[in-house]
C-alpha cells in the first residue's frame, strides 16, 4: 500500500509558481520598464502583500473583513516613527515618547517591527472581535477600521493628524517589493497547510461539524487574524517607504474596497486567486492609464477622456463577477498537474442552514 504524499509535497508548487511568476515580472520591469512603470510594479507587489494578507483571514475563515486596512495604517505609521530622521520628528511629531523620538532604525529592522506591532494589536482586538460570527464579525471589523482611522486622523501630536508625515526614506525598488510579496505568499502558504489553517477551513465549510470535531473556532480565527495582520503590517511599512509620506486618508474605505475587490475578482478562497486578482486589476488600471494618455494609431493619437479608467474598472469588475462569480481562478490553485488550474481547496459547501435563509 503506497503512502499518500504529504500535504506539503502535493501543494508546494503553488507558492513556487506564484513567486517565480512575480520574479519574472520584476525582472522584466527592471530590464525594460520606465521609471514610472517600475513604480507601478512596486505598488502592485505591495497590493499583493495586502491582498494575500486578507486571503489568510478571509479565505480561510470565510468571514469578510473590512478592518484589515487598519493594520496597514498601523504598520505604516510605526515605520514612519522608526525611520524618519530624529531631527524631522522633533519638529512634526512632538508628542512621541522620547525613546522613540531619538530612534532611527534601518528599513530591514523597522519593517518586521511594524509587522509585529500590527500583529500584537490584532491579538488584543482579535480576542474580542473573533467571538463574533458572520456579518456581525464583518461589521465589528468595520468598527475597528473606523476607530483606528479616527484616532490616527486626530491624534495630531503623534500622527500629524489629517496631514501627511514626510521624511520616510524612499528605499523601495522592484527587488525588495518582490521580496515582500514572496514573503507574504510564503507565510500565507505556510499558514494554509498548517494544522490551524486546515481547522479554520473546516469551520468555514461546516461550522457545526467542525466544532463537533473539537475545533476551537475562536482560537483558530484569532491565529489567522494575527498572521494576516502581520503580513498587512509589513505591507503598510513597505507602502510608507514606497510613498515616503503617510497620511490616514490612504488607509480607509477606498483602499479597503479596492483590495477586497481584487481578492474577490481573483477568487477569495485561493492563494493563487489573491495574487492573480491583484495582477489582473493592476494590469487593467495600467492599461487604461495608458489609453487615457493616448495611443498612437497610424499617425493620429486617440485618447480616452480622463476618468474613464475608474469607470471602466468598476464595470469590468462587475462583468467578471457576473460570469465568474467565484473569481478568475474559480477558487482553484495553480499547480503543475491539471494545467493551468487544479482544484485543491474545495469550494465551501452551501449548508442547509444557509439555503433556508
Amino acid at each position, binding site marked *: 500500500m503506497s503512502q499518500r504524499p504529504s500535504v506539503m509535497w502535493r501543494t508546494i508548487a503553488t507558492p513556487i509558481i506564484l513567486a517565480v511568476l512575480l520574479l519574472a515580472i520584476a525582472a522584466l520591469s527592471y530590464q525594460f520598464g520606465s521609471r514610472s512603470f517600475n513604480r507601478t510594479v512596486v505598488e502592485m507587489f505591495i497590493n499583493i502583500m495586502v491582498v494575500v494578507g486578507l486571503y489568510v483571514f478571509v479565505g480561510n475563515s470565510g468571514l469578510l473583513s473590512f478592518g484589515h486596512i487598519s493594520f496597514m495604517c498601523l504598520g505604516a505609521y510605526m515605520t514612519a516613527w522608526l525611520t524618519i530622521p530624529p531631527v524631522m520628528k522633533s519638529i512634526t511629531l512632538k508628542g512621541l515618547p522620547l525613546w522613540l523620538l531619538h530612534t532611527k532604525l534601518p528599513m530591514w529592522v523597522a519593517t518586521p517591527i511594524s509587522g509585529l506591532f500590527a500583529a500584537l494589536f490584532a491579538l488584543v482586538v482579535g480576542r474580542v472581535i473573533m467571538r463574533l460570527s458572520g*456579518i456581525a464579525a464583518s461589521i465589528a471589523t468595520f468598527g475597528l477600521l473606523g476607530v483606528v482611522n479616527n484616532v490616527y486622523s486626530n491624534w495630531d501630536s503623534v500622527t500629524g493628524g489629517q496631514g501627511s508625515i514626510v521624511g520616510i526614506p524612499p528605499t523601495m525598488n522592484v527587488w525588495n517589493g518582490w521580496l515582500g510579496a514572496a514573503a507574504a505568499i510564503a507565510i500565507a502558504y505556510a499558514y494554509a497547510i498548517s494544522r490551524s489553517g486546515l481547522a479554520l477551513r473546516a469551520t468555514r465549510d461546516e461550522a457545526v461539524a467542525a466544532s463537533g470535531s473539537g475545533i476551537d473556532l475562536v482560537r483558530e480565527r484569532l491565529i489567522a487574524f494575527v498572521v494576516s495582520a502581520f503580513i498587512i503590517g509589513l505591507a503598510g511599512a513597505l507602502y510608507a517607504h514606497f510613498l515616503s509620506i503617510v497620511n490616514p486618508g490612504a488607509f480607509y474605505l477606498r483602499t479597503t474596497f479596492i483590495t477586497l475587490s481584487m481578492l474577490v475578482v481573483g477568487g477569495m478562497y485561493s492563494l493563487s486567486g489573491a495574487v492573480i486578482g491583484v495582477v489582473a486589476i493592476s494590469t487593467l488600471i495600467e492599461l487604461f492609464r495608458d489609453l487615457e494618455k493616448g495611443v498612437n494609431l497610424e499617425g493620429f493619437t486617440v485618447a480616452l477622456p480622463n476618468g474613464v479608467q*475608474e*469607470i471602466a474598472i468598476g464595470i469590468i469588475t462587475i462583468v467578471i463577477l*457576473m460570469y465568474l462569480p467565484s473569481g478568475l481562478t474559480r477558487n482553484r490553485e495553480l499547480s503543475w498537474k491539471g494545467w493551468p488550474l487544479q482544484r485543491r481547496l474545495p469550494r465551501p459547501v452551501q449548508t442547509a442552514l444557509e439555503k433556508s435563509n
Partner: protein
Amino acid sequence: MTGLLQILFDALSLGSLYALGALGIALIFGVMRLVNFAHGDFIAFCVFAMLWPSINAAAIVFAGNLPFYLLIPLLLLVGAGLSILSEVIVFRRFRNANPATMMIASFALGFAIRNFLLMLFSSRPKSVTLWPSLGLPVEILGARIPMLQIVTIVITLVVLAALTLFLKRTRYGLEMRAAAENFTMARMLGVRANGVILFAFAISGMLAAAIGLILATNSGTADIGMGANVMLIAFIATVIGGLGSIPGAVAAGFLIGGASVLFQATLPPDARVFRDAFVYGAVIVVLLVRPQGLFAPKSAKQRV
C-alpha cells in the same frame, strides 16, 4: 432645559437621516440578501441630478429652480429610476451569487457611478441653494431649533408611517414582508420575485433621493462623497438592528444618531475629535452583547 431640547432635536434629526438610510439598505437586504454599497452613490447621484446639465462650480441650478412640488417628485423619480436600472442591469444577475460577491459587485457599481459623477462635475464641491428659509431657526420652549431639523424629523415620521401602512396593509407590502422573511418559501407560495425586488429597489432609490435632498439643503453644497458617510452608518445600523428586521434598522439608525450627538455633547472638548471612535467602539460593544442585533427577527435564529 433649552440645551437639552437642542440636543434632543439634534439627535432626532441626525437619527432620522440615518434611519432613512438604514431603511433603504434594509429593504433590499431583506428581499435579496444584498448589502447595497452603491446606496451612498445613489444619494450623491440624486443631488447632482439637480445640477445637471450645468457643470459650473457656482452651479446654476436647472432642476433645482423648479418649485418644490415639481422638484421633489422629479428627484424621487430619478432615485427610483437609477435604483431600478441598477437592479435590472446588474444585480439581477447576482441573485444566486454568494453575499461577498454581491457586495463587491455593488461596491464596483458605486465606484463606477461615483467616478462618472467625478468625470462630469469634477471633485470641487458645488454650492446648491435650496429653500434657504428652512435654515431659519424656530423657537420652541425657548430653544432655537433650525426649521430644517423639524422638517427632517417630520418627513421621516411621515415616510415611516406610510411605509408601515404599506407593509402591513397592502398586498405588495405583505408579499415584501414574506419575501424578507423567507424568500424561497415566498416564491413557492406565489409571490412574484422580480416584482417584489423591483419594488424594493424603487422604494430604496426614493429614500436615497430624500436623503440627498435633506443633505443638500442642510449643507448647501453638493459633494461627490456626500452619501458615503450616511451609507456607512446606515449599513452599520442595519446590522445592529438585526438583519432582516426593518423596524430594527430604523430604531438602530435613531440610536446611532442619538449616540453621536450625545458623545458630541458630553465628551470633554479634547476628546471630542475622537467622537467617531467612541461611536464605532460602542457599535462593537453592542455587537458583542447582541451579535444577532438588537431586534433580530425570530426567523433569523440559527437552527442547528
